[in-house]
């Protein structure tokens, strides 16, 4: 009997413990439910508040739109500036190339001019003209003609690429060379080359004070030289004047030297 009572009490205590745990769990659920209700209430309040202030949203949207527009203008301006800087760079690069070309031209012209007036010896002057035409113009076959005042013909006095004997004597005013020298105008033809020594591919008359004293006739360019460049034409202009005066001066100097020697000979003869 007492065993039965003990068993009933034991089960009763277990039931009470189970019941109290269930009660605690129910309390926790109720607390959680309350928290969620509060949270939901807050969110509903915020939503209602936002819905009740559309001006605030519009203001904010406007500010953001203006800011976006401002940034777009800034971006366009930066892109425009970038384009300008790129164009400036391109312009500077082109200018740099031009300046380099001008430097090259000036270097060639300076050297040519310097060398032409570095001597009064006619053979040296002719050698220098040959060097300039070979090295600075790039000609392979050419001749320097000088006017023979007695016969009024042009006669080759120096040449490159072919012996002097192949170049014809040219009457003034006749053919390409004679006409060019007569008119004083540089003549340029087909640069592919000419084996006809009466018809060069270029003829540069040499003139001192509007008087032609000779010419440079070019018949063939070096293999790697395809055409005459603007620098070549500048060199032709320089040669037309400076080579002419160099030849003229050296001839005058040679004549005066000869006369001086003759006079000195007479003086020596008379004073002995």
């Amino acid at each position, binding site marked *: 009997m007492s065993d039965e009572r003990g068993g009933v009490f034991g089960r009763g205590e277990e039931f009470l413990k189970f019941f109290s745990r269930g009660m605690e769990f129910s309390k926790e659920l109720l607390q959680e439910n309350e928290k969620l209700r509060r949270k939901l209430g807050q969110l509903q309040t915020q939503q209602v508040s936002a819905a009740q202030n559309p001006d605030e949203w519009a203001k904010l949207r406007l500010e953001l739109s203006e800011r976006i527009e401002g940034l777009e203008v800034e971006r366009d301006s930066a892109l425009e500036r970038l384009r300008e800087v790129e164009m400036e760079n391109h312009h500077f690069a082109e200018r740099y190339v031009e300046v380099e070309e001008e*430097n*090259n031209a000036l*270097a*060639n012209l300076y*050297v040519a001019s310097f*060398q032409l007036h570095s001597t009064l010896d006619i053979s040296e002057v002719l050698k220098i003209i040959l*060097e300039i035409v070979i090295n*600075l113009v790039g000609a392979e076959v050419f001749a320097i003609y000088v006017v023979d005042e007695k016969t009024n013909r042009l006669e080759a006095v120096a040449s490159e690429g072919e012996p002097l004997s192949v170049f014809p004597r040219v009457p003034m005013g006749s053919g390409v060379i004679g006409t060019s020298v007569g008119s004083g105008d540089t003549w340029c033809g087909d640069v592919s080359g000419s084996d006809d020594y009466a018809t060069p591919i270029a003829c540069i008359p040499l003139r001192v004070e509007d008087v032609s004293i000779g010419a440079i006739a070019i018949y063939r360019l*070096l293999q*790697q030289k395809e055409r005459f460049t603007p620098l070549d034409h500048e060199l032709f202009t320089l040669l037309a004047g400076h080579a002419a005066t160099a030849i003229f001066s050296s001839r005058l100097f040679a004549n005066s030297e000869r006369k001086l020697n003759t006079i000195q000979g007479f003086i020596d003869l008379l004073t002995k």
Partner: protein
Amino acid sequence: MAKHRILIVEDSPTMRQLLVFALKRLKDVDIVEAQDGMDGLRKVTSDEFDLALIDINMPVMDGLKLVSLIRGEQNIADMPIVVVTTEGAKEDRERALALGANEYLTKPIQANKVLSVAKSLLKVG
């Protein structure tokens, strides 16, 4: 910074002056001129150079002979050499490069091209 020493071997005074004119745009450069291959050989074997510019068609000794002699001389065999010439044929270029030239420039030359090649071989900016 040590000066770069450059030897120009060229029989034409006009070309020598033009090459000097071009190379003087380099900073700290000392340029020595020789008027033919033999003169060039004397100078290159008795002095130290960082670069040589050599013409091909020259009296006494031509430029290609000088290039091959330099390449055969142990002390100066690695000196950079630029051949400057009127000879524009492909086989002339190949021959010069095969003999040991580093660069091959044909006349008429441009001063800025010479300068650019010299800068490259001297490894200067």
